[in-house]
């Protein structure tokens, strides 16, 4: 998911939040998102849920990034506004590729801001299901970066 897509989804959630609508669908050239909420009677304010579909992403996986609590996947998010790097330098291999198994504490990317190089560690053992951002792109605070399947076991 690109950062502008992420921002747009956030805005759509806010629009839905402030409206009486129960469902919202937006289609762009390369992605489509549908946001709906369950209409709950007498149980406090209804919470929006998001399902998004990217060309290259299974809808199940992307939905996990927006609603990690209901998913089997762990979402690694950015702790800071900055630039995402998948490798230590342009000449070297990526820290991880999709499908790789990682250990808790293993460095999976760098987020740089003002030349502070932040090595982001995996919070769990598991398999990298999806890398959600492109190398050398700007990212926001809290933006999902990786989906990790914590129950996957190396073959």
């Amino acid at each position, binding site marked *: 998911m690109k950062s502008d897509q992420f921002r747009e989804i956030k805005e759509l959630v806010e629009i839905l939040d402030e409206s009486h609508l129960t469902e919202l669908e937006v289609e762009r050239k390369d992605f489509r998102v549908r946001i709906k909420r369950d209409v709950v009677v007498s149980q406090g304010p209804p919470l929006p849920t998001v399902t998004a579909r990217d060309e290259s992403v299974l809808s199940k996986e992307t939905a996990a990034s927006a609603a990690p609590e209901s998913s089997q996947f762990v979402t690694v998010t950015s702790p800071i*506004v900055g630039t995402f790097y998948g490798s230590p330098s342009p000449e070297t291999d990526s820290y991880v590729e999709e499908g790789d198994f990682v250990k808790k504490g293993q460095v999976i990317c760098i987020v740089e801001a*003002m*030349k*502070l190089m932040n090595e982001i560690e995996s919070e769990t053992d598991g398999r990298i299901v999806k890398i959600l951002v492109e190398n050398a792109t700007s990212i926001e605070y809290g933006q999902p970066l990786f989906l990790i399947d914590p129950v996957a076991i190396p073959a």
Partner: protein
Amino acid sequence: MTPLSSERIRLLLNITDLAQTIHILDETTSTNTEAFAFAHAGASHGTIVLAETQTAGRGRLTREWFSPPLQNIYGSILLKNVPPPQRISWIPLITGLAIMHAVEKESGVALFLKWPNDLLVGNRKIGGILCESTVQGKETWTIVVGFGLNVHTPIKEFPLELQPIATSLFAETGHHEDRNQLLAAILSNFSMYYRKLQRSDLSTVKDLYVSRCSTLGHHVQIRLANGKMLEGIASDIGADGALQLLPANTHTMNCHELIDIQSGEVISVR
């Protein structure tokens, strides 16, 4: 030329939040790597690691840092009590400011501070800063502030490829400054600015930085991480330390909006 001495540095220091422990190593791979190893072994916030030489001194993006023995300053500060995320990215900037003020006070050499933290005399690099952190679960930060300052090395002793672009305090003044005194001044300044960051006294930090950043007010070109080039006037510094650029081609755009640059190389100033 006096050797590094933790007793002497501590004698000159008047701070309590940093430098309770100062490790001085004759040789190490890199003081940043060493500081992370100390952190891993339980070292406390404010631990300082200094070395007389580095066998694998490094800059950003795995570039090398020239580290001949007994000549210069190679140091790292370990930070575990860190400010909230939106202020963490100020750390490289205050490090530049801390070194700049220390150098000017101790040696009288005037430095240029190029955003975010390049330390220059004219067009020559006199110091370098490498801030690295590890983040686990968004909350647990271990930050290592690494810095190098060329003190005694004459220009002709730098590697050939660095001779046109590097300098040292000795090359500038002909005097041999005491590295311990420089270190005490750097650490005192850093501690002062860092406490301001932790107390969220951001406006003082920003005013200090803005008043000394040589990039501001100039027409600059910036190479972004993805290789894209931007051009415009370096106008201000954002709340997170970003360089705010007024794009040169605003007449083709609808507004005069500033662009926040968090990552990029300022490649020309005129």
